[in-house]
């Protein structure tokens, strides 16, 4: 993936980690991370303590690498006046300056960008509207629900129209409606060519919106890229394929004779069979022969473990969290 990215994107379009390590005393944060992140939605996936937040904090300069170098669109975080005009970070810290209302919170942030009063006010209102918080904007943040606090922080992070948005667990605490709206917002921003970096435990939702995924565990990046590509690289786990057809039992019995097939499990309605095979190519060849020579009528053939959750399970070893 890396050479391809390098050929397609210039330095000022990439987020680049070069051999980055971060230690907190003796405790490892992340180790030897080399990444190049292209525009689009990128999800950081891993269990608690994997290093997702550390990676985001390094990306935004809240912490400094012990070794290595981080550049976002070619700009180091040590140049905040340029850096934070293109970067917006919605952290996991559920805290706010004392006594502010939602509107004041976003407005103050824009004033820190150096905007004059009127522009800051308009910018704040626009961002607040984008996260559907207009009705509550004049209330004190201290009285907000967790989901509202999450949304107002999101408004603050997007208020200056950054090119890179870093969002640490942005779906936490949101109700299903707000979650769907936020996901649509992230997807739109990614489609507009922005970098949207998300960490999340909600793997099936991450799977839906991510252009690429970075899998982390114990401070190491274990895989990165598009989910399908990453799944292809996990060769020691049999591939799961679901075949839907009228005579699934015939397919199952035939497949049992094949040495690359590890398991064939009938679906409850007897119109489907789930195959686990060590050689997907040989399986597809066989299925083609059955269609061509035996007249098998196949309704659908779909990979059953070509998603973030399965890849997570294979790479990191435990079930992903699906909320």
């Amino acid at each position, binding site marked *: 993936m890396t050479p391809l990215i390098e050929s397609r994107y210039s330095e000022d379009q990439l987020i680049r980690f070069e051999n980055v390590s971060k230690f907190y005393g003796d405790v490892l944060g992340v180790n030897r991370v080399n990444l190049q992140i292209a525009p689009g939605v990128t999800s950081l996936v891993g269990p608690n303590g994997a290093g997702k937040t550390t990676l985001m904090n390094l990306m935004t300069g809240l912490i*400094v690498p012990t070794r290595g170098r981080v550049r976002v669109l070619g700009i180091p975080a040590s140049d*905040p006046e340029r850096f934070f005009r293109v970067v917006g970070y919605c952290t996991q810290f559920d805290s706010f*300056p004392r006594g502010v209302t939602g509107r004041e919170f976003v407005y*103050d942030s824009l004033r*820190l960008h*150096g905007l*004059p009063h009127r522009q800051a006010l308009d910018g704040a209102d626009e961002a607040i509207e984008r996260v559907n918080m207009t009705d509550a904007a004049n209330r004190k943040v201290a009285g907000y629900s967790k989901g509202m606090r999450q949304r107002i922080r999101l408004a603050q992070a997007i208020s200056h129209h950054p090119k890179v948005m870093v969002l640490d667990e942005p779906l936490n605490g949101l109700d299903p409606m707000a979650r769907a709206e936020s996901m649509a917002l992230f997807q739109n921003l990614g489609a507009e060519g922005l970098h949207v970096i998300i960490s999340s435990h909600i793997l099936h939702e991450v799977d839906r919106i991510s252009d690429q995924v970075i899998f982390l565990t114990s401070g190491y990046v274990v895989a990165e890229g598009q989910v399908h590509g990453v799944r292809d690289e996990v060769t020691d786990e049999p591939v799961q394929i679901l075949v839907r057809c009228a005579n699934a039992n015939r397919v199952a019995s035939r497949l049992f004779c094949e040495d690359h097939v590890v398991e064939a499990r009938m679906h409850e309605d007897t119109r489907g069979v789930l195959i686990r095979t060590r050689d997907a190519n040989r399986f597809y060849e066989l299925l083609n022969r059955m269609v061509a020579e035996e007249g098998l009528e196949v309704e659908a053939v779909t990979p059953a473990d070509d998603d973030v959750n399965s890849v997570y399970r294979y790479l990191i070893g435990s079930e992903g969290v699906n909320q």
Partner: protein
Amino acid sequence: MSAVAATLTAVRRNQLASVVRQELRKNFLRWRGWWVYLLAFAPALIVGAHAISHMMGMDNCELDEDTTILAGIVQLYYLRLGIFFGCMGIFTRLIRGDMIERSLHYYLLAPIRREIVVLGKYLAGVSAASFFFGVGVFLSYFLMYIHHDGAGRSFMLSGTGISHLLAYLSVTVLACVGYGALFMLTGLLFRNPIIPAVVVLLWESINALLPSMLKKLSIIFYLLPLCPVEVPADKLSALFAISADPVRTWLAVPGLLIVSSAILTYACVRIRRIEIDYGGE
């Protein structure tokens, strides 16, 4: 100046003003700071009681005597204790308080130089501290002379009286400038400001006993010579009120500003290295 540089300067000015405004809104006139207000206004309450008792004929005192008492209040109370601890309360919270409340990152994630954040917070702190202690000193001055009827009023309005007031107010502001810079730095360097505050208090207290070179590394050394009235040296308290080797008045103000600027510059260097790790707060 090029157009780009002019724009950058204007943006930084806006940012500085924004930090000052936000800090004043967060910290100015909040119940949490009641003890700072008490430090600022306690002498005025005592002087007010003294004025009432004098007017009711329960207390007999001369105007000169009250002038000396006022000098003692400013030099022994305000400069040594009131402003010292008030500034400790105000300035150590400016950065450490944000870390405790986990909101410092909002500043660090804005396109603003960290030095401007320090400077903005510092200016807000100096404004607030100068306001409270300035009003406290003014009230003490006013109440100290108002009960002397005609003599008191004419002293207050005379050149001497006004020059005393201006000197006390200037010393108050300069004390806030000096101690403010010091406690801004300790708030950055230490999680618990009590221990460094005690060390600084001791250092400032023994200033009169220190060798000439070391004397210059304190705030009180530059403040005392600016006070218009000497506290009599016949008491133990004179040890804390009079410097045996005073700096010349014309050097005191730039000297204090240089020391404060040096401390503030170091605070700016330190904040560039700060990392957000709220876990330890």
